[in-house]
């Protein structure tokens, strides 16, 4: 069980890494946002899942699930607002 | 009852401020007057108690140091609390008249000033290094909004500059406290003084950080940059409080630390002479700047920069007379400076401006205001029979006793320069106007008794302090034990 948990955490970290690389390397705001929010949400989810397996406790797993849901919601709205703001201001400022 | 007085001296004024915050000033300033009464009573009772029985202590929460915080009222604290009560009480009276036509400013003044009063008392009573940091911040954050009551863009700039520097100063002080706590694990000043001896260069560094922080807060040259704008730009009662009490608070803490935990590092010749050098620079620079100013309130503000310098001359002298002289100077300057700022404020109010060149001939019309200015000026110059004279006399004797004759020369030169800027103002005011420029004399606004009497009383007190040396120095008591 703990091996599985560790494996999932490593997978999650990989997603984080991919998201960060995407943010640094992608050319414009939209694709960067895409990289950060998508990859990090999955990464955080895997991290929470892995930790839940490691703790071996339902209450802690539930807590981690709540954390993930809140983080995903916040990230989604944040992403939406940044993209929207960008769309209204136009891309000329880059 | 006795041991409750220190707590009441801190919290009754603060409760008064909160009361005004909740209810406003009330009809005919009922709550404001009540607040002043609430603030004065415990202060004066506490001073009387200290005079009668000596040091009063209070262990907060029943916890003895090092775990808990101690409030301590010794002679030095009592003297400062008395100064705050006298200056604060009279300036409060002036403020009732000054803010009579500005309801909103009055309300904010009566919230902030009682809070400041309580904070000052808290600082003077503090016997704990960290608590002193908290009270310093309280004093600063109550004082800066008061500057804003002037409402001008210049006041905002001065306030912001003051805030940034003050915040930095207190952080420096806290860094020193952190090192001291790491060295000995206590924050109580007396315990720290006992345990810190021989702590080596880490203590020196801690002392350097704390002292630098306090110098920034006390606006000692070269950290004075915010003071003239803030003190010169604020409304008159606020300027009086800031110059007489608020900057003094930081210097008080410096003296308190010197007589306690930081005695060793501050008594090393290099440190003592460095501090005294800053003091000398402050005296000379501040006085010369005061001579060059065109506006009356700025003259008075730069005079504060200069007068604060005297208080640093203590460190190389380190004797009984110097100790008494420095503290008496703090008290005498507080009263005289409050009188000067109230007089300058009244002159500004009556003339509608405070440009010195345009005051020609107004001395005969504004005889009372300029008379008070002159009386307070006598104390600032250090001429007999004023309080300033007594302080400078003690300081001169102290410097000769310590063999530091050139400090005596600086003290004399500072007095001469002070005479220069005081007489420059008086000369402009009492100069006989040109006969052909008669119509230039402006309409003079009338000031009420509420604005005249406090100024007069403060000016008379400034002179009277010359005769009060005996009781006040008895109240101050012995020198801190280390001097022997």
């Amino acid at each position, binding site marked *: 069980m703990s091996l599985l948990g560790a494996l999932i955490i490593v997978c999650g970290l990989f997603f984080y890494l991919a998201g960060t690389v995407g943010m640094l390397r992608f050319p414009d705001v939209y694709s960067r946002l895409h990289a950060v929010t998508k990859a990090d949400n999955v990464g955080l989810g895997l991290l929470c899942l892995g930790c839940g397996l490691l703790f071996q406790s339902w209450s802690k797993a539930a807590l981690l699930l709540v954390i993930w849901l*809140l983080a995903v919601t916040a990230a989604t709205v944040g992403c939406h607002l940044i993209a*929207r*703001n960008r*769309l209204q201001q136009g891309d000329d400022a880059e | 009852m006795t041991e409750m007085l220190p707590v009441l001296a801190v919290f009754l004024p603060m409760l008064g401020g909160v009361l005004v915050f909740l209810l406003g000033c009330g009809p005919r300033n009922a709550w404001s007057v009540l607040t002043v009464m609430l603030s004065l009573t415990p202060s004066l009772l506490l001073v009387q108690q200290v005079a009668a029985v000596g040091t009063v202590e209070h262990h907060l929460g029943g916890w003895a140091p090092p775990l808990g915080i101690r409030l301590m009222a010794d002679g030095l604290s009592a003297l400062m609390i008395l100064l705050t009560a006298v200056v604060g009480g009279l300036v409060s009276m002036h403020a009732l008249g000054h803010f009579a036509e500005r309801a909103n400013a009055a309300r904010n003044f009566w919230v902030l000033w009682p809070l400041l009063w309580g904070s000052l008392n808290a600082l003077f009573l503090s016997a704990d290094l960290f608590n002193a940091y908290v009270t310093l911040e*309280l004093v600063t954050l109550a004082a800066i*909004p008061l500057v804003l009551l002037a409402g001008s863009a210049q006041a905002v700039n001065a306030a912001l500059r003051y805030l940034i520097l003050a915040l930095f100063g207190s952080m420096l002080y806290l860094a020193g406290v952190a090192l001291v706590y790491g060295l000995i694990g206590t924050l109580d000043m007396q315990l720290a003084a006992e345990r810190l001896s021989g702590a080596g260069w*880490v203590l020196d560094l801690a002392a350097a950080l704390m002292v630098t922080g306090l110098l920034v807060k006390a606006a000692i040259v070269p950290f004075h940059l915010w003071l003239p704008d803030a003190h010169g730009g604020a409304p008159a009662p606020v300027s009086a409080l800031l110059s007489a009490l608020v900057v003094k608070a930081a210097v008080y803490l410096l003296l308190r630390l010197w007589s306690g935990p930081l005695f060793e590092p501050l008594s090393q010749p290099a440190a003592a002479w460095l501090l005294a050098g800053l003091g000398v620079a402050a005296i000379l620079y501040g006085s010369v700047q005061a001579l060059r100013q065109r506006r009356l309130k700025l003259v008075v503000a730069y005079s504060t920069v200069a007068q604060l310098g005297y208080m640093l001359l203590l460190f190389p002298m380190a004797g009984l007379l110097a100790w008494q002289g420095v503290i008496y100077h703090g008290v005498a300057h507080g009263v005289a400076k409050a009188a000067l700022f109230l007089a300058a404020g009244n002159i500004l109010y009556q003339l509608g401006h405070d440009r010195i060149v345009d005051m020609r001939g107004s001395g005969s019309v504004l005889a009372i205001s300029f008379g008070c200015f002159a009386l307070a000026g006598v104390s600032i110059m250090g001429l007999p029979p004023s309080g300033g004279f007594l302080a400078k006399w003690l300081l001169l004797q102290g410097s000769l006793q310590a063999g530091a004759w050139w400090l005596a020369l600086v003290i004399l030169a500072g007095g001469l320069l002070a005479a220069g800027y005081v007489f420059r103002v008086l000369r402009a005011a009492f100069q006989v106007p040109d006969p052909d420029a008669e119509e230039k004399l402006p309409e003079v606004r009338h000031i009420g008794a509420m604005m005249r009497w406090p100024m007069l009383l403060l000016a008379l007190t400034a002179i009277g302090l010359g005769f009060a040396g005996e009781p006040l120095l008895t109240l101050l008591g012995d020198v801190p034990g280390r001097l022997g």
Partner: protein
Amino acid sequence: MTLSLFDGLTALLLVILAWRCLVVPDLFRGIVLFVVFGLLLALTWARLDAPDLALAEAAIGAGILGVLLLGTWRALGSPRSGETPASSLSRWLQIASGLGSALLAGLVAWALHLVPGSEGGAGTLAVEELPLPATGQPVTAVLLDFRSYDTLLETAVLLMAVVGSWLARSSLLDAIAGNDATTDTPVVPALVRLFAPVLLVVGAYLVWAGAHSPGGAFQGGAVLAAAGVLMALGRVLGTAPNVGWLLRLLMVLGLLVFISAGLLLMPTEGSFMAYPERWAGLIMHLVEYALALSIALSLLLLFTGAPGLRRLG
């Protein structure tokens, strides 16, 4: 403490973030870097066995202060005028300042290396005396019992800061309002409806938890204030030109309860803020809830910058 990779990286990142935050010419970037610095600092507090501080830093230092900084940046003008002028100091003075700072840092680092720590001092006593006070959490015991005087005074600092920013007359919320891409979307009100209640519950929980685990009036109050900020941004709360008496009462409630508990019991207990043993727990809880309410409201009013609050639609 052994030098681990994690600690090394954290410390290095802290330093780099602080450095970048202070030298980037773009104000906006500087502010964002400062907020990230605050969050990393929260992580550092957690690593250094200071969970109370981690919560406080995340909520107050990075959270509320971050919102205030960004709002101020918005109020300073159009987003693209964020470039700050380069230093007006001459090159030599800059170098001198750099050398001075390096000297300061070196001396402090060496001193911190030498300082033995406070064994046998007040800290040891505080840990030993812990069964005595009514609250079992060491930091809360120091804040509300051993050194409650400091806590009381710092609440007064908060009140003064609020009065001061009213005097500055610069409403932040009005500066943020106006045509804004972030407010005319249905997503934001939905988010506010979802998150504000959660934050209110979390804040209340933190106050309650302070008695036995990390948390307390300041952390809880800051989270409650964050809920208020969210509601203000989502147009549930708006500014009003005048303060109602109820709002003013709530602002000073913590101060009033704290002072009166101390003053009223002083004649019987002999010293200020010493409580009778039977009631100590109850009184401290009361004080803590009152403080949390006042802190939350004060922080929220520091954010809106206007004296009053009112409900919008």
